[in-house]
């Protein structure tokens, strides 16, 4: 089960017209690529995708899942949308609520365990290791944890005993007791999932806020699987930008060039390789297909089909697809949204990253200094 319904309000305006998992990442990827690639790399071939907020971009993008080898006759990808039923409207009120609405999907496949994932995390993971851990510990629920690079208080914090079982769980605590943060990835024994969701409804709707504390209270054995790899919850513009920059500064984190171990798949564009025309400096840049580069690029991620015209300078930027940066522009610390056209001579320098699109440009007025 992949949860892709969230609005991602903190990513506004990036998510104004699309679900968070459809957000562009690393030039040619979208956030959903990580979870779909992890699934196919873990040989998990039955996937339900729960959608709610602005699902069309995402559904069009995923299609039948062929790009991730998930277009299978048995299983494969199934979109689980909110629906109207005899009992009344089933608009999803939270992550757990959404799963409960689609319990019939789980019943139909009758698996031993259900893994619940979010579509908006940046990480490469073989879920089998986690499922093995889940089986070995005999837990009803296993939660994947990581050690955050920033404040623990942003995350769900877990306190563990010596066997790795969870003692306490606090969502975004001011004074965290534990040292492990939840990745929002859960493996449930199917039976436990059904019982808890049925028992717990309707007062709580969210896995992190409601279900896990309830399960702990009910003395279900909840185990922590400690994930050692790179993990980013890109819930804010800053973290999304930082994760993009990690691709440049630390290619070893996500190893995008590694096609053997946990390769990252994406739906490919139809663009020819990018064309660098003039002999301007290009330093520490990631440049995608279909781009036309005449200017200078420094420490930036450039998505497909972007034009950077003569004497333009792009520094510490993330540029989404289809953007045109005209002659003599100077951009620094800018996150430029798809299809933005920046007029010649525009200079935009921010101290810390800011989002730019045609609307903001309009508000700023032409020739903004």
């Amino acid at each position, binding site marked *: 089960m992949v949860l892709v319904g969230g609005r991602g309000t903190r990513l506004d305006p990036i998510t104004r017209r699309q679900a968070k998992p459809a957000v562009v990442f*690393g*030039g*040619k*990827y979208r956030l959903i690529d990580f979870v779909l690639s992890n699934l196919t790399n873990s040989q998990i071939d039955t996937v339900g995708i729960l959608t709610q907020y602005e699902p069309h971009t995402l559904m069009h993008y995923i299609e039948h899942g*062929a*790009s991730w080898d998930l277009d299978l006759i048995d299983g494969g990808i199934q979109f689980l949308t909110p629906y109207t039923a005899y009992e009344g409207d089933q608009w999803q009120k939270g992550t757990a609520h959404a799963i409960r609405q689609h319990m019939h999907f789980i019943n139909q496949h009758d698996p031993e365990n259900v893994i619940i994932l979010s579509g908006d995390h940046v990480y490469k993971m073989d879920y089998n290791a986690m499922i093995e851990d889940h089986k070995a510990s005999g837990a009803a629920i296993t939660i994947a944890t990581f050690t955050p690079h920033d404040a623990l208080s942003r995350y769900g914090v877990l306190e563990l005993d010596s066997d790795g079982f969870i003692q306490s769980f606090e969502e975004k605590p001011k004074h965290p007791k534990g040292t492990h943060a939840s990745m929002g990835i859960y493996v449930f024994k199917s039976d436990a999932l059904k019982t808890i969701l049925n028992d717990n409804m309707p007062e709580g709707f969210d896995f992190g806020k409601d279900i896990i504390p309830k399960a702990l209270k009910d003395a279900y054995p909840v185990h922590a699987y400690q994930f050692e790899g790179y993990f980013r919850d890109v819930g804010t513009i800053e973290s999304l930008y930082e994760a993009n920059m990690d*691709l*440049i500064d630390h*290619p070893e984190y996500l190893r*995008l*060039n590694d*096609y053997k171990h946990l*390769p*990252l*798949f*994406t*739906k*490919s564009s*139809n*663009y*020819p*390789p*990018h*064309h*660098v*025309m*003039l*002999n301007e*400096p*290009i*330093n*520490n*840049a*990631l*440049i*995608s*297909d279909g781009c036309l580069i005449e200017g200078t*690029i420094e420490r930036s*991620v*450039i*998505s497909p089909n972007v034009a950077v015209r003569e004497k333009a300078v792009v520094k510490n930027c993330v540029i989404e697809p289809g953007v045109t940066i005209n002659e003599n522009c100077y951009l620094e610390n800018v996150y430029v949204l798809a299809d933005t056209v920046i007029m010649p001579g525009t200079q935009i320098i921010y101290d810390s990253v800011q989002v730019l699109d045609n609307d903001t440009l309009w508000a700023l007025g032409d020739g903004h200094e």
Partner: protein
Amino acid sequence: MTPCGHWVMAMNNRLLAVIDASAHSAFDKLTLHRLPGALPYAGRYRLIDFALSTLRNASIINVAIFPSGNYRSLQDHVGSGKRWNLDRRRDGLFILPPKNLSMPAEDTLSFMRMHEHIEYFRRSTQEYALVMPADIVWNIDFNAVLTDHIESGAQITEIKHQNTRMQTYIISKKELLEYINSYDVIPYQTLNDVVLKKKPLNYNVYDHQGYSKRIRDASTYHRSNLDMLKFEIGTQIFSTEWPILTKEKTAPPARYMPSSDVMNAMIGSGSLIQGTVHNSIIGRDCVIKEGAEVYNSVLMSNAVIEKSAHLNYTVIDKGVVVKRGTVLEGTTTQPFVTQKEQIITTRSNLSVLFAASEAYPYVKTGGLADVVGGLSRALSKKGVNVKVALPLYPQIKRQYQNTYAFHDSMTFSFDGELRKVNVYWLERKKVGFYFLENFKYFERDHLYGYDDDCKRFAFYNRAVVQLLHIIDPVDIVHAHDWHAGLIPRLLKHHHATPPGSLLTIHNIDYQGACGGEVLDALGLPSNPEGINFLEDGILQSTKLSTVSPTYRNELRYEYFGKNLTPALQRRERDFHGVLNGLPSVFSPATDKVILSPYDAPNAFAKTENKLALQKQMTLPMGIHNFVIGMVSRIAEQKGFDLVIGALSHFLGVYTDVQFVLLGTGDEALMERLKQLEKAYPAQVKLNLGYDATEPNHIYAGADLFLMPSRVEPCGLSQMIAMKYGTIPLVRRTGGLADSVTDFDPLSKEGTGFTFYNYDTDALLERLGDAYHTFKEHKDDWRMLVSRVMKADFSLSTQAQKILELYLSIKS
């Protein structure tokens, strides 16, 4: 118009497409493991993507691909055709390989091969058929072509671009089926034949304005790739509205490091750029290390260019590693081409030892000596340190005793006894020669023809291997023909770290099939069945080559490869065809023998030589007479059956045709030729003696040079004739196919007249075409004369390709 963005529009149920994905030999290494259609292009695509995508953009949903040869890579690329909307319940994508595998497939799709899959044509419901090659780079709207075809009311429409024929046709399926059904009774084998020969034919030309290029060899491949860097061409081919689609791959955006220096380059996904890239195409997942320089080059995927390597005008195949400091230089017409997954290093002193039974100028009985002499010199000009090891025959002793010096002597056991070999040495034009002296085996009047030839050359092989112990180390031993066939095995037997070996097959008819006593003499494990020198060399050498790319392909068939076919098939991956070069001594401008020397700008002076030839041969003199010349050993293999059959018709019909032949050989054939001379005494003159007139008189004096060989591994006469401005008429086999391209009166391309089927009618027809061109299209003929004189058959080109092979052996 059906723009792609609105693909939901109606399927095109009027047009089916046939893609001709036949193999052909002009690419050599690039198409060793793939068909031309599967060649990577522009850093991301394969050539066939242009065909499939333009078909998709025209909403065509019934596509048949006719591959020949190794189509694994093509099949892998197109898959189910989903990418081009071709995975359909009805119609869709069909891959239809040849069914008859006992004969080499022609390089153009014939009606005969279509007939093998006649069901496909019968079952499809479309009214029109589009037949196109898989090797065109373009972005064209086929619906516009179809409309034009229908409006013209023509039987057949061909697409042209600036007078270049794209050999892409639209024809009604009904008419196509008629040709296919009657393939064995009509005089046309392909649609091209129909266009050129069928009269009357309502033929319509559709002129396509946009960029269009057929990719026919390494040079057009290289140039066309770099064309994509021209902004107008690139944006027109890779249009967003009419997209070119290709198989999905997983690769992140390309990464540029601060040390990168890039100008006018297309760079594929997943590449890491740390070095210099100017005016080049870089494929997917390449690594250009810091300090590496890539200029004017085309890199396919996964190439690694190491520090301070320098590339200029190169084509680097998939997975090639160019090591530190390696310098690879090609030219626009002759790019340096690597092989797939090769590791390339150059030390400035690459050192090679030639092992051959003869070498010009020291000892010569046939063409082998010329090749060894010419190639060794051409390689040394390219900076290779070349040495040649020859048996010291009495002929050499007599003539050169005073020029060589004693080098060393060596002793080894052979045939149960210790044998001593004295080694003499001389250097000629920067090529070193070692002469191996042994009285028992080499002191004979002739080179070959003794009962103990097996042992003699086994001894020679053993001596060469011993020689390596007493001379400066060499990187590669280049063995020629069966006389050196056991060297690859002996190298492994007598050297802990043996140098690599290249075996070149000049003549497969002589194989050195020897008894088991040779093995015993060499101290090798005995085998009662004996040993075949050439076969053993084929199996044991690091790489193999033969004298032309087409002959190399033909040798996979038993008709050509004979008993060695299985061995050659086993080594197919390491087997290359390199066309022999022509020494620069063959030039009508410097020829002292002919009456009137001439060069290409003054080719009209050739006429004086023609009159001189007629006079000398006592033929009626006249510049309007059509003089057909032949210089050939008279043997069945050279196609004399056809010559006699065709000429006995032809000379009767056209009394102004004259035939001059110089050669000797098979008695029965010579007798039949004399009959021909008797029947047409005023038109035929034979010169059948050993001490014949200079062949140069014929090369210079004839209009047409006839060479309809049944088998012709390389052939030099056609190249000499061309240098002298004499238009070749050849059968498309072996080196003839690689040196002569068929003249096409519509596009005016080509360098001669060719035919494929070994039968009299096929030859007769081309004789007629040549005659009519000479008589009625004098401008075309003059153009052909000046064109063939400029053809490049240089030793330097051959040496370049052999050098590329050496580099692949060293890695």
